[in-house]
């Protein structure tokens, strides 16, 4: 009897095989929006360096419906990425005190608390309140 193992080809259908793979791909996909937003900020800095007229034109550009739509999408993707990422932190950073491990909720919660504090600090320095 001879051996003839059959090797199955991998196709991209795996993404749709289970919701977990789709959720993962959405998290990976979020980098496109976050990257594009970062490039937009670099362009904004360039306009700022070119003087008040260029800066004012940049700000006007940001008010366009396309820009607002893009920002809403980028914010949604950034929030999805951050929330799913922080929820995974207990796996990467388990903390054992004595015999017991610190509960997952405490580790993820600490990340969310620092995130909220830093966001408030940024808003404060930006003059939001």
């Amino acid at each position, binding site marked *: *009897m*001879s*051996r*003839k*193992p*059959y*090797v*199955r080809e*991998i196709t991209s259908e*795996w993404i749709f*095989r*289970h919701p*977990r*793979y789709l959720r*993962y791909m959405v998290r*990976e996909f979020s980098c496109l929006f976050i990257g594009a937003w970062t490039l937009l900020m670099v362009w904004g800095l360039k306009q700022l360096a070119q003087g008040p007229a260029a800066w004012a034109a940049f700000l006007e550009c940001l008010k366009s419906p396309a820009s607002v739509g893009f920002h809403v999408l980028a914010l949604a993707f950034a929030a999805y990425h951050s929330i799913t990422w922080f929820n*995974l932190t*207990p*796996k*990467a*950073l*388990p903390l*054992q005190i*004595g*015999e*017991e*491990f610190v509960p997952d909720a405490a580790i993820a919660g600490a990340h969310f608390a620092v995130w909220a504090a830093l966001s408030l600090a940024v808003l404060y320095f930006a003059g939001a309140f």
Partner: protein
Amino acid sequence: MGERLVELEVLRYNPETDSEPHFQRYAATCREEWVVLDALNHIKETLDPTLSYRWSCHMAVCGSCGMMVNGEPKLACKAFLRNYEGAIRVEPLRHFPIERDLVTVMDDFMAKLARVKPYLIPRQERPFSEGEYRQTPAELKRFKQYSMCINCMLCYAACPEYGLIPNYIGPAAIALAHRYNQDSRDGGREQRQQEIAATEGVWECSFVGACSEVCPEHVDPAGAIQQVKIKSTVDWYQAHLMPWLNK
């Protein structure tokens, strides 16, 4: 206990006669409390003795009966028929070559497992006369969940990275390497790092997390892999920015 007619669509492959696998449908009267493995055994005993698959303990300990049940990696002995509606599709574990029917070729996993040295490498060899290597409950708890791995390879079938990059060492082997690295009695981390901290080790993982979701023993290979990534990164910074620490 009641009985019901269960339809199973089983992927068949005979290397001597088939050029590629095909599905074969069986209808078998099964008891309500049976698992997929019971149904397969019943089919083999009463309908088709040529059906091939691996199994041994029937109690989720040996790790032999891993297969895809309706597209999900499952132990056939732990997949209860009552949890499925309609025809149940049974296929060999994904990402592994098919030897025959539901039997896969697992040479790749076995070779990778050996490479990570999943056994205790004592810091200092001691003679038997000095007694056992003692450990506190806290030290035991540090690695215990990883020692529950039964080498069933469901995590490999769930991991798209392993499917796409066959050289990737994969979840179970890294989790087992981590199990020994975390053990207070062990001194073999440096030897294992050569395998698991390499590109084909933890760095092929993009944290899909499917391995931990499908593990029948509730091991968390995804967690182990991320912890190895962090420790390996710390190693790199220590070696390059604080070389005096390595002396």
